[in-house]
């Protein structure tokens, strides 16, 4: 999974991209095609969320849709073929050292002239007892990955948005029955998904209800305890799988207070994907007002990659790393 000879911590990359989803891979593709020395860091799976998705029907160019994991691999291969270097590691922080941006990871520090933060988001957790304990033992965020373990069983999907219904519909092909638990009395999912959901005989809906506990036998999930928010009536549902799709939170903790964020932690950017810190760009689901679509993430990545290119060529005109480091010393006060 690591690219080529492995990245070097003493070299100054033109750009380091944090996050290997659609936004990061597209930024890497454009940066590499612009002949930038580009390194992409990803802590889990190439492709990000699409690696955990089924059929993608709204990415242009694929009249019959394309499987998310296939798109993920293709995007990765396309970017690395153009020279993008990659490393499987976890980023722990980003800081400024004059004109140089330092990306801290569990494998040491990496230096760059510019950084694109495309670390996306994380599935919001229910925050109820049993959820952590039964992770991968019946609690899941990925129907496509884990659905096969629930053939012929009864599973619950928590949430009422696009992700919940899309993944729920996928599960109806494997599970005997899919119970959609939603805290409101109507779905938020797009009309086309709602239509399909209501026409699917083995998908049923438990409205106005929240999960209060995931129950299990210490080995696996055996049920959930839910409460109707209108009547306060509790009940126990016998399910063996709990698929949670109640939203996303930005994975911006690595930034600390380096760049401006909104009250939810999404990064504020200009239309060129620039943050308020020169040489630090953000793209995809982590930015304010992201549409959280594959195509918009890719679009963001394109803009961020090209903006980083423009920034690096303008700010580091002589192109020599030695000179850049020297410039760093004198420019350290001007950089912020």
């Amino acid at each position, binding site marked *: *999974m690591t690219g080529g000879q492995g990245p070097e911590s003493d070299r100054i990359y033109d750009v380091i991209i944090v996050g290997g989803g659609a936004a990061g891979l597209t930024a890497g593709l454009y940066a590499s095609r612009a002949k930038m020395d580009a390194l992409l860091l990803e*802590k889990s*799976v190439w492709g990000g969320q699409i690696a955990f998705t089924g059929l993608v029907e709204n990415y242009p160019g694929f009249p019959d849709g394309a499987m998310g994991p296939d798109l993920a691999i293709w995007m990765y291969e396309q970017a690395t073929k153009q020279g993008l270097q990659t490393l499987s590691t976890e980023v722990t922080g980003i800081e400024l050292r004059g004109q140089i941006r330092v990306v801290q990871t569990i*494998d040491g520090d990496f230096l760059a002239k510019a950084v694109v933060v495309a670390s996306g988001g994380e599935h919001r957790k229910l925050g109820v007892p049993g959820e952590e304990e039964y992770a991968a033992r019946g609690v899941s965020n990925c129907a496509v990955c884990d659905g096969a*373990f629930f053939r012929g069983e009864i599973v619950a999907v928590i949430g009422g948005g696009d992700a919940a219904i899309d993944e729920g519909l996928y599960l109806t092909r494997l599970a005997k029955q899919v119970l959609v638990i939603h805290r409101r009395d109507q779905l938020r999912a797009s009309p086309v998904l709602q239509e399909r959901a209501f026409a699917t005989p083995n998908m049923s809906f438990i409205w106005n209800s929240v999960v209060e506990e995931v129950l299990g036998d210490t080995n696996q999930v055996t049920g959930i305890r839910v409460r109707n928010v209108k009547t306060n009536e509790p009940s126990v549902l016998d399910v063996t799988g709990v698929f949670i799709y109640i939203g996303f939170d930005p994975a911006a903790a690595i930034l600390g207070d380096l760049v401006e964020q909104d009250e939810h932690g999404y990064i504020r950017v200009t239309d060129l994907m620039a943050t308020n810190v020169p040489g630090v760009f953000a793209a995809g689901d982590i930015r304010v007002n992201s549409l959280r679509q594959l195509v918009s993430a890719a679009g963001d990545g394109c803009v961020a990659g090209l903006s980083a290119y423009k920034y690096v060529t303008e700010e580091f005109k002589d192109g020599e790393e030695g000179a850049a480091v020297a410039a760093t010393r004198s420019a350290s006060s001007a950089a912020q």
Partner: protein
Amino acid sequence: MAKPSAVETSTFEAEVLKAEVPVLVDFWAEWCGPCKMIAPLLDQLADEYEGKVRFTKVDVDAYPELANRYGVRAIPTLLIFRDGTVATQVVGAQPKTTLKRHIEAILQGA
């Protein structure tokens, strides 16, 4: 070049539970994209820890009873066994350094 060896229900006891060294078991399946993404990392680690940790893999489609016995309902899941019991569970695709930390902790008897 050490490589993870495939284990099945009939060989699990001898290969995993009765092993002299800690054993990492990679629960995987052919259709699992993230499993394929971590496979090269496990190959590298199998090499690096040759003689210290045994690396094995279980195809959950072929041997669902093994997945079921250990409550594995998501893949990739890595279980590290020591003296016949599960000492560590690692869920999902993780960086090599993270996997190494789990292995080192087991080797140091944590």
